[in-house]
């Protein structure tokens, strides 16, 4: 057998992963092959040293399977101080909200002013009245355009930088309303 195969079998043997028959066969083979036995011994030694080193490093510090800082109970125990802190925070928030609501509606009074029954109504001005008064001025035209639900006149200053097609559309729109 090759060294690689011997070493693999030796590791399996050290790990207890060989069945009884295979173990017996392997031992018989090693008994008849001194060189193979030396290889197997060597790898078994490494296996045991590694096992010992890891065991010493990892088991020297605790006993009986329990860890130092945590216990299984801690996983489902209720954390009362934490719960109390949350409850206090919620109650404080509720208190603030309640107080704010009370303060907001404390002494506000609303006064409703009703029209006096005997008061004469003034004349309501129509759009044509307004036209007479305000047409021709800049803001007057704007206001009349708003009242008549049509776009106001665009002045040249506002049309700077506007494309020809937009200008044409605006012109058509204005024409429609006139």
């Amino acid at each position, binding site marked *: 057998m090759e060294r690689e195969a011997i070493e693999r079998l030796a590791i399996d043997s050290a790990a207890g992963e060989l069945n009884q028959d295979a173990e017996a066969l392997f031992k018989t083979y090693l008994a008849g092959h001194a060189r193979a036995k030396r290889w197997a011994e060597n790898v078994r030694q490494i296996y045991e*040293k590694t*096992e010992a080193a890891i065991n*010493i490093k990892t088991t020297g510090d605790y006993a009986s399977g329990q860890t130092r800082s945590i216990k299984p109970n801690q996983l489902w125990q209720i954390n009362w101080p934490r719960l109390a802190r949350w409850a206090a925070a919620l109650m404080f928030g509720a208190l603030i909200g309640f107080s704010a609501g009370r303060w907001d509606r404390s002494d506000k009074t609303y006064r409703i002013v009703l029209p006096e029954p005997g008061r004469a109504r003034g004349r309501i001005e129509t759009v044509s009245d307004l036209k007479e008064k305000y047409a021709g001025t800049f803001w007057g035209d704007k206001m009349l355009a708003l009242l008549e639900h049509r776009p106001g006149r665009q002045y040249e200053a506002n049309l700077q930088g506007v494309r020809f097609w937009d200008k044409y559309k605006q012109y058509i729109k204005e024409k429609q309303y006139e």
Partner: protein
Amino acid sequence: MTGEFKREFRNFWTNTAGKVRAYMFCASENWADADDMTQDVYLRALRGWNQFNGTASRQAWLFGIAKRTRSDFFRQKKRESFTAGSDSPEKFDKVVSDGTAVDNIEKVWDAVRELNDEQSQVVHLRFAAGLSYAQIAQALGIPIGTVRSRLHRGLKSIRENIGNLENGT
């Protein structure tokens, strides 16, 4: 959570916690980190207790969680050390008083530390957690043959790292 389940989980904990903690310590070399990771493993196990499908053993399932927890922990640690500057791993106290034995243990431990991630996973699960080949295969989600060859390669690397033991040096 029923009393019966609590008892079952406590038994499971008692039987496995030491192994999980040892497995975590192998990677972190720091008991505080090992404890944090162990606690995290059991919290995850508790949350996913009913998701266990029974194809592997409970212990192998737990070590599958442990492996993921370990990877997450070190990913997080790496990110933190990248931003805050890396710390060298905490050096542990010597547990054996005999000078030669300590030297040998330290040598072997250093050699184990040099293994790549795949090999060290198998070596730690075998020696620190005491899992069988089948359980390691289930925990890592790899075939038994791969476990065998990784362990073999790992031990070979350890041998190379600690020197030529064939000649007794």
